[in-house]
């Protein structure tokens, strides 16, 4: 029926994930009961990494879909395609996951239009089914199938929020940047960077997050700190790496830049 090889979605190597609290056991409990999961948190704080890690730990394939504004329901569910002999049906990623029992991860779900997000509704309540209207088929989800969405509440726009009826189908996990010691460890483990230097990067990250709401929309993410660490590991001067990875991408405001630049000089003697 489906031509897709599910094994390609299995995560073969153990991803590095630094556990922050009890999220691993709690997620496992949610999965055992096949409850849909929502992971919330600011950008680059480890949401995607966590889901990947859980998929590996549970030994389930993971299908990730990055959502965007132009995405339609068919992009998730599937569509008829034209070919030389007429048409044939092509499953979308959501359908594939439901049929074959994968974890389907819809990244940045708020980006998708609301008429798109509603297609997940029947999969996320007791029905656990996906109607393919055009094809006239009703798929019963595979027992291993689970839906996970990620969602960054920091957009601060009412219009870009999920509907209540969507939100209330999920159990939720709040993520935030790891505390200083853990974040240092993440940088060290991800890039091999010396802990003393990693500590300083983390200090910069934490201080820069103080400016959130005072001219910065988002603080410096763990992802950016990892970038900086990678550059330093590669021999780039620490201050240059910080400017390039931590300051330039997040702001064009001259005053904020000057402040962050100074902070880098103050922290890296």
């Amino acid at each position, binding site marked *: 029926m489906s031509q897709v090889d599910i094994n390609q979605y299995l995560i073969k190597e153990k991803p590095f994930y630094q556990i922050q609290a009890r999220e691993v056991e709690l997620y496992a409990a949610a999965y055992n009961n096949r409850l849909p999961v929502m992971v919330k948190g600011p950008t680059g704080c480890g949401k995607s990494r966590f889901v990947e890690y859980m998929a590996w730990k549970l030994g389930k394939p993971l299908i990730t879909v990055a959502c965007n504004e132009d995405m339609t329901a068919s992009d998730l569910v599937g569509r008829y395609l034209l070919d030389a002999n007429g048409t044939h049906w092509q499953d979308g990623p959501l359908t594939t996951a439901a049929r074959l029992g994968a974890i389907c991860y819809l990244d940045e779900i708020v980006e998708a239009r609301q008429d798109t997000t509603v297609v997940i509704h029947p999969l996320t309540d007791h029905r656990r089914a996906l109607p393919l209207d055009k094809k006239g088929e009703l798929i019963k989800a595979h027992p291993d199938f689970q839906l996970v969405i990620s969602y960054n*509440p920091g957009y601060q726009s009412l219009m870009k929020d999920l509907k209540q009826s969507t939100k209330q189908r999920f159990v939720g996990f709040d993520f935030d940047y790891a505390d200083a010691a853990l974040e240092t460890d993440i940088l060290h483990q991800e890039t091999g960077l010396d802990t003393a230097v990693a500590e300083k990067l983390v200090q910069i990250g934490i201080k820069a997050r103080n400016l959130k709401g005072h001219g910065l929309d988002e603080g410096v993410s763990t992802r950016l700190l990892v970038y900086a660490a990678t550059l330093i590991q590669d021999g780039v001067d620490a201050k240059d790496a910080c400017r390039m990875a931590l300051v330039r991408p997040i702001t064009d405001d001259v005053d904020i830049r000057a402040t962050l630049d100074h902070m880098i000089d103050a922290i890296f003697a």
Partner: protein
Amino acid sequence: MVIAVSKTQKAKTSRLSPEQLLAYRDQFKCNFKAVDNVFEDCMEEAVYRLSEQGISDYLEGASRVTMIGRGLEPILTYLEEMPQVAHDLGEETLNMVAEAVWALSRTANGKSIPAFVQTIGIASRRLGCKESLGQYISLVMQMMARTASSVYGWKQTSYPSPGAISMLEQMPYLLQQLSLIGLKNWIEYGITNYHNHPERQKDYFSLQSADARAVLQRERHGTLFMDHERQLNLYLQALWFEEEIPLLVPYSEAFDQLRKPHPYYDQLGFRIPDVYGDLNGVSGINRYRMVLAHMAGHRRWSHQLIADNYSPFQRMAVEHFEDCRIDYLIMKNYPGLESTIKALHPQPDEWACNPEEESCIRHRLTMISYAMLFPDHDYENSDVIDFAQRFYAAMADGQSTTNEMASLGLSFVARTRKQSDQYSSVHFKDTEVFYRDDNRHLWQFIEEGDEEEMWDKRVHKEEEEVQGLPPRHYPEWDYNSNNYRPDWVSLYESLHPSGQASKIDQLLSKHDALAKRLKRLLEMLKPQQFVRVRYQEEGSELDLDVAIRSLIDFKSGAQPDPRINMSHQHDGRNIAVMLLLDLSASLNEKAAGSNQTILELSQEAVALTAWAVEQLGDEFAIAGFCSNSRHEVRYQHIKGFSEHWDDNVKGRLAAMEAGYSTRMGAAMRHAAHYLEARKADKKLLLVLTDGEPADIDVTDDKLLIHDSHKAVQELDQKGIYSHCINLDPKADEYVQDIFGQQYTVIDKLERLPEKLPQLFMALTK
């Protein structure tokens, strides 16, 4: 019929009442007819910006400017500029300026009065505090006095200063370029060199001559505070993130000849120089940062000591040790600052001071200070070496304490005491550490203060009858027991009393320019009737562009995009917004750095927002709340969803008053029940508050925070999005616990009127 009458009168009634105006006009002694054209406008601004006393000073000042008989111009300038100046720098300036004009009129330089008055506005904006404005005025007056000349003969004749008017005309530019001390030096040069060459003096002060420009260039060094204020605020916010970032207040170093004033801090804020030049390779901006770091360090790590027990020398020593502890901790946190401190801290020559002839106390303390900060020092004095060791040991395991430094300091004085310390001639060279403040915050003097006065003076207000609807009861969340206390809070809703709608129109007219800008933004937000949605598999119309592209793909054997249709969608904004205002007593306080109360600023902000939302046509309601224990939460209706932004609503807003406490949860729940009844797709509750929830019958600070957080969650369940606009600089401590990420802290209160509507638009974009 009544309505028709009041409408025709409206244009007039939106002003001061005619009687009031007449009374003010009587106090202002001036016969120029032309003044009457602007008097009303000026008075309106004055009434708005000034206190009772201020208004009377203003009118008296204007009368004096009239009396000198220099024509209409200085009068008009005074009338127009002074309300703003007095509002920004303090009402003492009203007299100060009038006084100066009066004094000038008694000299030969009366002709330059109009030009002089003209510079007051820009000078006040550039200089930023009344002391500096006063110094500016005396600077200008001295220049005029010293360049005017008298010829004694059969009859004494006086000639006015030839350069004064030219200089005053250049003043906006000069103030833009120079700090007060720079200006002083520039003027000084002109006086010294040209006081008896009228023509060349004129050239100099009108910036025509080459040396005028050269001196200007030379004096233009330094980093001006006014140009870097925001950056310095950001610096504090990011690196020293304190509960509350202090206000920065500049002073000028130009006028204390004897000893330069030191930075210091008090309740009002951090006082710092208005300009810093580069010093020992440290740039001006980094010198500012260093001063702020040091003061912020004190705020973070120092504790007060009782001053009464110590002699002046002992205090001086304690201060030096404590300063070193602060600098040490700064370097520990920010190793990059070590080089800055090293460059700025003097390193006195060990043998420079002769104890036979002069007092070496400062010299000794500066040496030990240097030695404590920089272990690689090369001092040989055994006490210095010993105490530096003791300092390192104290700092070795952590932060140490102010008390530990105090006892180190005391033993240091005791050990190194010399007869000559008392000598009046003190060795000063290389002993001043300019980035350190004067430590006045470190000392507490108990003898003067009378502790009895600390008695609780709270007077209980008479229970007022609460009018309006019967109370509604709401539960409150008790986090200790993890449970609701049912029907815990009684909430009374009433219609807010009404006042003068014209007051609000007046506030709005003040923000004309802002309103124009908002209008442009609003245009973009306004719902377009239909929007085209492209890339649809099914739709109402074929999207020709896409279809052709698909066909080409198909013909060429590639996978065609099937999304070749488009459809139209009605893009109505369908949202309901409730603005809930905290009307607790703290709103009566003056906003930091502004002469207006928080309440007044809120009124302006709410008026602008309401106006903006009305333009958009969104459903919008406004209510206020305050509380006086759980038995009496007052909820005041200001604007209902079905009401328009009209004079009734404006009247209620104008009468807004603040009092009592902030029991936020109940008010939010009540506001929510109105929002719940709306049919809109999106529902937004905006809470405007200046502090954390609190009430007189609650001692546990956390309780109402938890309850408000619970309310936010309840609202979320009901599909109502809450967002907090917080005016409290300390908000970062608790606002997240209540609103999660859904909050905005307004740092600069005076910008609230501009921020609130913008925030509303950003949230609903």
